[in-house]
């Protein structure tokens, strides 16, 4: 007999997500993903100056601040056919990379590692053995026995105080927790070190963006950082040089800790490479433009249908028609209504709420269901890494091999690339992409310094808005995947604005053809050991790094505790 489980809300994410699953014979047989908040930021933007849109859209969400700012200016620049100076691209690229690295580290260590790491079990660890293990995996200097002993002491004090704080809602002692006490202790030590590491990323964003978390330096037409070699108030060479130690510290942590930990967790939980594939049409976009127009990028992106990387089709430039013409959103199962039947292209998108109850076969989410040429697509680092491999992008291939080789040697058997189509594969892909971005960040730093050395200080091209109507869209390979903003500008004012965000692609409900979305598909056949403690559902959902604040936005939230209802 089947059993219905409702998890509402999913914790340790931004925003409000409800997941329902039906479990039969210890496995998930049906799934629903429901965004429980309504987002109406598009409505706030109507009639406003397009030059202000970036500052408003970066307020949609507390996690993805800079990504909306960047995508918004790209959309307006695309509408105006405006090129921006290369210095502005390099500065934006460094902010993008630092922000994304920050996001990946926080997501892995502080939000989702607790699905795999049993903190309480770490109390039983032998710190000497934990240090031996950690030192055998990496030459990171903070893997020694002193660090492991200190971590154990700290954990004992913390658990002894009764205030579990960030670890309160963990599934300690759950049968699906498989790591040895020593691996758990190593993970807790790295959890603490990750807090230090992510501060370097924040520093980079602050130094370049003038302020953090909400950057101030972006502008339609470039960035507002004047570059000079002699003034204190602007971006000086001295300030640029101050970035480098932070970049180096981040790179070390990513290479010596993050990539290694993800490989180890992947090896110890190798059974999880069998679950969570879901929708295997993958969509991502190129990013880190190095020219004024956005035709040359440091990381590639495109579309892969049905997990077949030989069928990869690239997206090649800002304004790319293949991407532009393929996107539609359906509201058949979402709490909106359109003025006519069928899905709509974002330029024609409508934001008119129409709430019903949670209807299993009808409307059940505040998220719309996006499709690419009529098909559901998974977005995110996994999509990007697979596109990188398909495109022959060497840095992606190098880091992917490193992760797969490390995990294979720990497991004692070869883990193929196809294992990436899984819950654990999404974590691996995020780490691989983060390794690539650390290189990209440093590369942009050197390129900027070289270019300034040649006497080019330009950072801004002034936009002019024509009479009449123009349309444009901007894309960005954000931490959670393909983000696009679409705008129609009439007489210099915003006439329509739609954000098609990564979590809408992944967490969206059933579509016009009643096909299930990536979250829903990825939950199918997941094992459920205990219906009262559905840790497995959280593992798969968290692997996408859900961030619902921009996928939908708040109306009301009176539920004060997490409810897991097993009916």
């Amino acid at each position: 007999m089947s059993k219905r489980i409702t998890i509402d809300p999913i914790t340790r994410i931004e925003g409000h997500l409800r997941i329902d699953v039906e479990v039969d014979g210890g496995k998930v047989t049906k799934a629903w993903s429901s965004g429980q908040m309504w987002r109406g930021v598009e409505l706030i933007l109507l009639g406003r100056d397009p030059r202000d849109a970036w500052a408003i859209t970066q307020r949609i969400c507390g996690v993805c601040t800079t990504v909306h700012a960047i995508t918004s200016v790209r959309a307006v620049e695309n509408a105006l056919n405006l090129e921006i100076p290369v210095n502005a691209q390099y500065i934006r690229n460094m902010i993008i990379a630092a922000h994304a690295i920050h996001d990946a580290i926080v997501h892995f260590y502080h939000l989702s590692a607790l699905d795999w790491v049993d903190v309480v079990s770490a109390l039983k660890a032998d710190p000497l053995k934990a240090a031996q293990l950690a030192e055998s995996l990496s030459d990171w200097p903070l893997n020694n026995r002193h660090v492991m002993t200190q971590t154990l002491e700290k954990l004992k004090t913390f658990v002894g105080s009764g205030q579990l704080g960030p670890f309160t809602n963990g599934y300690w002692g759950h049968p699906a927790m498989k790591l040895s006490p020593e691996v758990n202790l190593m993970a807790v030590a790295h959890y603490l070190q990750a807090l230090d590491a992510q501060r370097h990323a924040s520093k980079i964003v602050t130094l370049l963006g003038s302020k953090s978390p909400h950057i101030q330096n972006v502008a339609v037409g470039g960035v507002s950082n004047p570059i000079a070699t002699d003034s204190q108030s602007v971006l000086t060479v001295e300030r640029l040089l101050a970035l480098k130690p932070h970049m180096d510290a981040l790179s070390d942590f990513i290479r010596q800790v993050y990539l290694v930990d993800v490989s180890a967790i992947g090896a110890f939980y190798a059974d999880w490479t069998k679950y969570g594939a879901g929708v295997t049409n993958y969509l991502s976009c190129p990013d880190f433009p190095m020219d004024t127009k956005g035709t040359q990028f440091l990381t590639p992106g495109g579309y892969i249908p049905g997990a077949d990387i030989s069928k990869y089709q690239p997206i090649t430039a800002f304004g790319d028609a293949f991407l532009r013409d393929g996107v539609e959103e359906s509201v058949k199962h979402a709490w909106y209504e359109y003025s006519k039947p069928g899905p709509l292209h974002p330029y024609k998108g409508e934001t008119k709420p129409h709430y019903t109850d949670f209807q299993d076969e009808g409307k059940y989410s505040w998220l719309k269901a996006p499709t690419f040429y009529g098909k559901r697509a998974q977005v995110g680092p996994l999509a990007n890494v697979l596109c990188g491999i398909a495109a022959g992008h060497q840095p992606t291939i190098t880091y992917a091999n490193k992760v797969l080789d490390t995990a294979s040697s720990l497991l004692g058997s070869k883990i193929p690339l196809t294992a990436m189509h899984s819950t654990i594969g999404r974590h691996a892909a995020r780490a691989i992409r983060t390794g690539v971005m650390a290189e990209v960040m440093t590369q942009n730093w050197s390129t900027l310094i070289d270019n300034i050395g040649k006497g080019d200080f330009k950072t801004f091209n002034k936009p002019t808005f024509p009479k009449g109507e123009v349309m444009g869209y901007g894309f960005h390979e954000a931490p959670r995947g393909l983000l696009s903003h679409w705008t129609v500008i009439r007489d210099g004012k915003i006439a329509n604005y739609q954000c098609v965000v990564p979590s809408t692609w992944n967490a969206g409900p059933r579509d016009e053809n009643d096909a299930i979305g990536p979250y829903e598909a990825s939950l199918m056949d997941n094992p459920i050991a205990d219906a009262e403690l559905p840790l497995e559902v959280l593992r798969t959902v968290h692997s996408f790094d859900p961030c619902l604040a921009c996928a939908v936005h708040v109306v009301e939230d009176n539920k004060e505790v997490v409810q897991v209802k097993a009916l």
Partner: protein
Amino acid sequence: MKARPFMRVVVLGVGNILLSDEGVGVHAVNRLEELYELPAEVEIIDGGTSGMDCLDQVSNADYLVIADCMRSKKEPGTITRLTGDQIPAFFKTRISPHQVGLSDMLGALNFHDMLPKNIILYGVEPESFALGMEPTPAVAARLPELVAKLVAELTEIGVTILPKAA
């Protein structure tokens, strides 16, 4: 009370300014920065809805003063002051959607022994979270009082704070 040398005070406004009263904390710190000269030991952060991104600035502060909206079933605009041990209890219930980030940040700092030595929270009861970039009249009317309370709090801590010349 006299401020110790090298004291660090962080005033953090949190909230979503796109959702009317949800953004009251951000409006308050922006106004504080606009109207007053603040000495170097005071850092004002417009935290928006972010959590972990503020960790670096908040860690090891001597004082963290938070301005936020807080649902506690009082009259809209009511200002409540919470300190120390009262604050974790406040975070156990999700009163506004961005507390996930802020409570995670404070939890992480606590585990890392970098929690600010003193935490004071000013919460304003919201009337509405409807879409809009301005607070409702009931909450907007209390904004000057909230700013005055923040000024008084800073003065009590020992910070010299003066109105900007008009």
